[in-house]
């Protein structure tokens, strides 16, 4: 037990130094200033706590070894009442250690709460639904679903809302979470240093689909972001192929009541994600690898694929309609 106890903090350090976990998901390998600040604080608190752990474990191990009952020992130990000096020592030192931690924490808490806009910053309004995400860019008049595009090296002010139950917006590699609370708008900010795809998750139990309520934050160079935002606001382009044209007709008949494309269609109350740039998604429904089979599975059996979601099944489409629809949806792109 003693050895094990001593090993624990050691393993902790090893884990931290190696930065375990998947890149662009783990909070231990921050990709932006917010997560960086938080990891520094975590490390500071860990180091202070390791001091405590080492002291306690050392005394503990010594006491167990030194004062264990030896065979034949029947002496009655001295009944010590206590020691004022010791009590003062182990009251004062922890207080000092905590102050060392509390001061930077209070400062960071206020820094993280500073959501004032600067000249470059952009605002993204994030609305969480059971079990998907909607990203609205008020400055660009754009709405996107599931993938949150942001420019690199830019302060992103995130406004969080929820349309049904509580959710929580977490992109570990970029920033800690804040909750999406119905009736309240919470604000936080984040920033990505490098272009990349950062995984985000819902961290507040929100029902059956909670564990699959993932999203992506896609950081791109500012130029590319501008292009994305502009194109997202444009009307949809004509499909490239005849098959896709047919697919578009299927889409218009079956999907557009809930899903908008190029600013047309959708339903702000009961609708699903905007699909304007659906063809550029890495995953379907937040978690399925993007390929034809998975898309067909999702369209035909949504309830079985992601339990608890409200998308109706489109199993009545015949194979040719389905093929066309998939072709069309794959072509929904804004960055080509």
């Amino acid at each position, binding site marked *: *037990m003693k050895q094990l106890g001593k090993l*624990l903090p050691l393993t902790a350090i090893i884990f931290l130094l190696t930065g375990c*976990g*998947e890149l662009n*998901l*783990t909070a231990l390998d921050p990709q932006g200033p917010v997560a960086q*600040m*938080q*990891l520094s*604080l*975590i490390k500071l608190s*860990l180091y202070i*706590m390791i001091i*405590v752990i080492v002291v*306690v*474990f050392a005394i503990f191990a010594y*006491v*167990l070894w030194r*004062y*264990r*009952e030896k065979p034949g*020992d029947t002496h*009655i*130990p*001295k*009944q010590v*009442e*206590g*020691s004022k000096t010791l*009590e003062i020592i*182990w009251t004062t030192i*922890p207080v000092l250690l*905590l102050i060392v*931690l509390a001061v930077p*924490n*209070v400062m*960071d*808490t206020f820094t*993280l*709460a500073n959501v004032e806009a600067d000249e470059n910053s952009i605002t993204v309004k994030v609305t969480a639904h059971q079990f998907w995400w909607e990203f609205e860019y008020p400055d660009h008049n754009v709405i996107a679903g599931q993938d949150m595009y942001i420019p690199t090296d830019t302060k992103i002010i995130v406004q969080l809302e929820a349309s049904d*139950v*509580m959710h929580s917006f977490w992109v570990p590699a970029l*920033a*800690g*979470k804040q909750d999406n*609370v*119905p*009736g309240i708008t*919470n604000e936080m900010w984040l920033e990505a240093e490098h272009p990349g795809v950062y995984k985000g*998750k819902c*961290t*507040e*139990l*929100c*029902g*059956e689909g*909670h*564990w699959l309520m993932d999203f992506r934050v896609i950081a791109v160079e500012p130029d590319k972001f501008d292009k994305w935002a502009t194109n997202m606001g444009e009307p949809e382009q004509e499909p490239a192929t005849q098959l896709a044209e047919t697919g578009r007709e299927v889409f218009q008949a079956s999907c557009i009541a809930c899903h908008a494309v190029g600013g047309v269609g959708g339903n702000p109350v009961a609708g699903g994600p905007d699909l304007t740039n659906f063809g550029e998604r890495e995953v379907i429904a937040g978690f399925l690898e993007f390929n034809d089979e998975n898309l067909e599975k999702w369209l035909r059996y949504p309830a079985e694929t992601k*339990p*608890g979601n409200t998308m109706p099944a489109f199993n009545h489409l015949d194979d040719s309609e389905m093929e066309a629809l998939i072709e069309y949806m794959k072509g929904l792109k804004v960055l080509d």
Partner: protein
Amino acid sequence: MSNSQALKKSVLWDWLTTVDHKKIGIMYLVAGAFFFVLGGLEAMIIRAQLMFPELNIVSAQAFNELITMHGTTMIFLAAMPLLFGFMNFIVPLQIGARDVAFPFLNSLGFWLFLFGGILLNLSWFFGGAPDAGWTAYVPLSSAEYAGTGLDYYVLGLQISGAGTLIGGINFLVTIITMRAPGMTMMKMPLFTWSSFVSSALILFAFPALTVGLFLLMFERLFGANYFIVEAGGNVVIWQHLFWIFGHPEVYILILPAFGIFSEVLSTFSKKRLFGYSAMVFATLIIGFLGFMVWAHHMFTVGMGPVANAIFAVATMAIAVPTGIKIFNWLFTLWGGRIKFTTANLFALGFIPSFVLGGVTGVMLATSAANYQFHDTYFVVAHFHYVIIGGVVFGLFAGTFYWWPKIFGYMLNETLGKWFFWLFFIGFHLTFFVQHFLGLMGMPRRVASYLDGQGLNDLNFISTIGAFFMAVAFVILLVNIFVARNDKAVADPWDGRTLEWATPTPVPEYNFAQTPVARELDALWYEKMQGNKKLPVAEPLGEIHMPNGSILPIIMSLGLFIASFGFIYATYWVSVIGLGLTLGCMVVRSVKEDHGYHIPVEEIKQDKEVG
């Protein structure tokens, strides 16, 4: 009614009507153990599902029900009643009393808890268990998003919570007015002290839960709008009410466990507790601060930086009195003669385990970093470190320590040590890795996780650890069974406090003559003075005892019946149920029951046998 008449009753009737704190204590222990097994089985299914990525042993819906019921069961129906069991059996003995202040209410408290617990668990069979987490955050728990399971949750917890509140008041009064002569407050054993503070926390924390549950019930059943945003409601109010109760609740659980460790460490190092008064004040401070920090569960809900900073610092402050306790325990051991019994192994194992849980507590209190930790497996790891490493270790230490007094036989030490080591290793294996899972991006309460996120290995390790704990627990059950013929003497551990001065089995009146407590660790003091017996405060005389009563069980049953009426909107059933309960209250109020007296001859007879 005389005592001989009481003896004629059947055993079953005797247990159903008993107001004896020892029998009620045993019933709490048995019922608590039952729910502990239930909650444990739920935990095993949870860990089995998470052993590999994307498993579908149970559906996401069933998983959400399992985590909700695991948490609710373990907190309200296992940990609380098990601690209440020890408090009931031991506290009156430790203070040299013949019973608690309100034997009737004591029985009522137990039956309310039991019927509340049964009601909650019946939800499994009637439309599914509650599925919104043990915290039941609105709107997920509101009528729009959750089924009848939440009605069972609301009413089950309301009933068992009422029982807990009654129990808390009972212990407060018992400890204030029923102490043996000479036992001033500052001579009370630490377990009694911590039970006292814990009871005070119950008194001031549970009413907030009562209100929260009433509001949720009115909203779900009668169309109220407290948490409906469209009607002007506010969902955060539920969280405040829940945590104003919920945070003190964890201290309600941990403080009696601290008390158990204090007794066990002191007994098995053969030293008085180091820094007794510091320990008492630390307990009081923890109790007080416990009410000042509830919002640290809500750092991410948008309270703003000022509130977050205040609650962060207040929370960190709790580390100070807790640290004082840890060091005082270490210095109790220092210079002692430490005996490694199973009870003491759990107490010793608690120290490093709880320190780890404590330091992650401080890390979580760091509000700016909490945005990363919150609602991830880091939090799951933290609270299992404090609740298992603290409360459950305390329960097991208490089990091995007091088993001979309560059940009259010694548990087997070899099996006990197997149990300890398997459980200890399994516990750390299960929960240590979960800290990293959290930081690596695994939210809590996920029904599964996708492959390819780097979460597989640690989840596998965690589940293996859980199997260790399950095997360990089976060894405990085997131990309880095989050791049953090893009769215990009255004072097997060379004890220090008054409970070890009673004969085993403890007679229903506990002490034939009320003892005098001359010092802290009253029994040890007399032993050191060379006295074979405790000084007594009164001559041998007839002893007044309260009568048993069937009313508590009927009152609890009434509320149980009424609940079904509410859940299924058949209000005549509710009227009958509530009528039954109120009727019993009237009967109790109108019928004066003055108890009975045990004659001197019978006590003398007991003494000879003993």
